[in-house]
């Protein structure tokens, strides 16, 4: 392992780098710039930073207007508020007119920790994935976040980027290159395919090690692009004949659902979903919450074993 960095920190650095390159890039926040890490950009480029205050609906609408006038707005707040509080604004003012807004939401998932259920977005992927034309990206670590944010900036159209609060292991090298729409096999394997996104990618890699000790060769796939998800790539990766999906999100509507939808139609395959099981979270330290909501390497390995057992002979 090469240390641990929160994806929100990598995001804060990425927008500064991009801000130097792209004059049209502007950043908006809703009184959370310290937490979302847009504060660094605000200090360096005060004229291109807009604090809209605690007003998330107006935050999204203002970004839409800036995009309509040729700017590339990066909008940050917590994922709960970006996707839930302002859903209709994201839908009608950003996604429907296909405006070039980049919603980079931090504090997604259960690892928000102590703030508790009101602040733990467990359904944001489901909400964003349902909007036509909205690209949904979930980077796994800091190097990938930098690449994802860059790809979002150069992609013409609305993008949702899901970022976390907690530090997560660095699994990619600095020279890693993200390609929008591509899923990536990080570890080959022939017995079972584990699709993961976000911090669950590093956890899936740990699970694959323990599975190997049991004689199960697990393929680990990083699905950083959740939408658009290419049915061909998913079917190809699922050729092991057993599939596990893992995400720090509800089992309803996220990566697990997206993979299940494709496989059910193209290539029915035994599938086990690791995720939060249709409940709200609660306060606690991030690592304890991952245990409690069964998002650990042990849970992933157990799901893989179940999936393998369900394989057609």
């Amino acid at each position, binding site marked *: 392992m090469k240390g641990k960095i929160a994806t929100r920190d990598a995001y804060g650095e990425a927008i500064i780098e991009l801000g130097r390159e792209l004059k049209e890039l*502007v950043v908006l926040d809703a009184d959370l710039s310290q937490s979302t890490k847009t504060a660094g950009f605000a200090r360096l480029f005060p004229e291109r930073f807009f604090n809209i205050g605690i007003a998330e609906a107006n935050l999204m609408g203002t970004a839409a207007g800036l995009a309509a006038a040729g700017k590339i707005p990066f909008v940050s707040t917590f994922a709960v508020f970006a996707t839930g509080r302002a859903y209709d604004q994201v839908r009608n003012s950003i996604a429907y007119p296909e405006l070039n807004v980049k919603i980079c939401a931090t504090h997604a998932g259960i690892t928000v920790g102590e703030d508790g259920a009101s602040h733990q977005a467990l359904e944001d992927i489901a909400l964003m994935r349902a909007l036509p034309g909205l690209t949904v990206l979930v980077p796994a670590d800091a190097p990938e976040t930098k690449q994802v944010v860059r790809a979002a900036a150069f992609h013409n159209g609305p993008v949702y980027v899901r970022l976390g609060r907690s530090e997560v292991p660095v699994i990619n090298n600095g020279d890693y290159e993200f390609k929008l729409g591509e899923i990536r096999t990080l570890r080959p394997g022939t017995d079972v395919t584990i699709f993961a996104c976000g911090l669950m990618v590093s956890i899936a890699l740990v699970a694959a090690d323990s599975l190997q000790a049991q004689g199960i060769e697990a393929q680990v796939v990083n699905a950083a692009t959740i939408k658009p998800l290419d049915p061909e790539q998913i079917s190809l990766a699922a050729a092991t004949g057993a599939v596990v999906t893992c995400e720090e999100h509800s089992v309803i509507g996220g990566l697990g659902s997206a993979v299940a939808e494709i496989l059910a139609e193209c290539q029915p395959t035994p599938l086990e979903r690791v995720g939060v099981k249709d409940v709200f979270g609660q306060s606690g330290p991030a690592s304890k919450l991952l245990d409690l909501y069964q998002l650990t390497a042990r849970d992933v390995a157990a799901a893989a074993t179940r999936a393998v057992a369900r394989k057609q002979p």
Partner: protein
Amino acid sequence: MVLDPELKKQLEEKARLIRQHIIRMINAAQSGHPGGSLSAVEILTALYFQIMRLDPAKPRWAERDRFVLSKGHAAPALYAALAERGFFPADKLLTLRQLGSPLQGHPDMKKVPGIEMSTGSLGQGLSCACGMALAGKLDEASWRVYALLGDGECQEGQIWEAAMAAAHYELDNLIVYLDYNRLQIDGPISTVLNPEPFPDKWRAFGWQVQTVDGHSLTEIVAATEKAQASTAKPNIIICHTVKGKGVSFMENEAGWHGKAPSDEQAVQALAELA
């Protein structure tokens, strides 16, 4: 400025034509919103034929003024104004709300030249207009942003979020018109959920406020010129209007908010607008 009598006559003629289009379109579609379209006709006429800097041949011209119809259900009035201004042929108007038509029930910026923002979900357009105005400020551009709000629409909290932000960012390149027809779907705004007093509220939010007769082209243009000259504050022009204006049986009737006239009613309405 007082409008030159000849110009005033031309503008009044445009307003009359736009009202006729509105009736024909909604009658042909057998759906749509006549009341709030008719109340906004003079505001749109003043904007599209006198106030805004536009080139219908170049709808994406970088230096153009922008207009956001925050009360998107008045789309028929906007479509009619755009067609009369030459953005697209007027014979397209009768395709309103039909399958495959660019003239969607609510404005779609991807489908119609001259539409600057897709609207329809009330309360959102002002935020978008603020975003455009911010972009204009960043670019030190000379173009302005205009927006039209409904009075019932001001019950949406997002309007006041945007109002606060516009004043905070000193958006003096933003001029908003309030279609103060005092009606919404379920009746008078004062009985549904009273959003008044408007002038005090907008002033308290840091705006420069003017009040005009929203059917007087002269007053609308004069107030706009005053607003254009102001600095450091966003401007709102509260336009006293009559919902359904110009068609006797529709005037001041909440029931005509979103109802299409029958063929017979359309004939009568067009006779009144002849």
